[in-house]
């Protein structure tokens, strides 16, 4: 089965959504991913990279963030690599979903990560050579995501 790959580099100075969305849409359009799958990928990349940009750096320098999206065997993998402070989202505390509005102590921490964990099928985190490497996996067979894919 054919493997499709796209990569792009952005930096912490960029408007995250505006940089991510066209890249995901172009990839999704070219390979027949469903609107739902396209939205999940866009939202998860936006959430994770916005987190990196907002909380990841102790200085004010410009830092690269590298993204690779791969489609293989009905599975989309997303790899995000950055040189920000170590952050393992798998160890982040869950948001206070069940606590009534007026009793919440924290603003709404962890909601973005909760959305990512719900919408993706697999998450792996590695810290290597001073870099965070996050691998997300999403199966696209279950929602008819590849229904419109062109035949190879």
């Amino acid at each position: 089965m054919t493997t499709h790959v796209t990569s792009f580099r952005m930096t912490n100075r960029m408007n995250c959504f505006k940089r991510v969305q066209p890249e995901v849409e172009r990839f999704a359009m070219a390979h027949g991913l469903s609107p739902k799958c396209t939205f999940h990928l866009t939202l998860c990349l936006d959430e994770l990279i916005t987190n990196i940009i907002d909380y990841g750096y102790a200085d004010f320098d410009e830092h690269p963030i590298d993204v690779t999206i791969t489609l293989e065997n009905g599975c989309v993998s997303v790899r995000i690599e950055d040189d920000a402070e170590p952050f393992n989202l798998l160890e982040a505390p869950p948001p206070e979903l069940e606590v009534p509005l007026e009793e919440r102590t924290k603003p709404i921490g962890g909601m973005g990560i909760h959305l990512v964990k719900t919408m993706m099928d697999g998450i792996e985190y590695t810290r290597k050579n001073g870099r965070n490497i996050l691998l997300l996996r999403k199966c696209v067979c279950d929602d008819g995501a590849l229904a419109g894919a062109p035949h190879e």
Partner: protein
Amino acid sequence: MEFSSSKHGDKLVVTVAGRMDAITAQEFDTQCRQWLAAGDTNVIADLSGLEYISSAGLRSILSAAKQLKGAQGSLAFCNLSGMVEEVFVVSGFAAMFTMHPTLEDALAG
């Protein structure tokens, strides 16, 4: 993000269009201060024109809801669809807030 509003009795209907992401989300919170300053505390947000919402948008909504509640007011939603509705469900917001399928329902409720 674009806002337009209209009064229906003691309720203010606010139509929100565009995108609530990390860059734009604060605008909702800012608008809320203006509603409060004008004495409007019971707000129905019509989200039919909202194309995208991330957790930054949810934070802004929560902050606005707290302000309205602090003024004995309320914040309800109507006309959610597609991805916006999914984000409301997954985040628990659909259970936490009053949700109406249509504006007519929201005004009747």
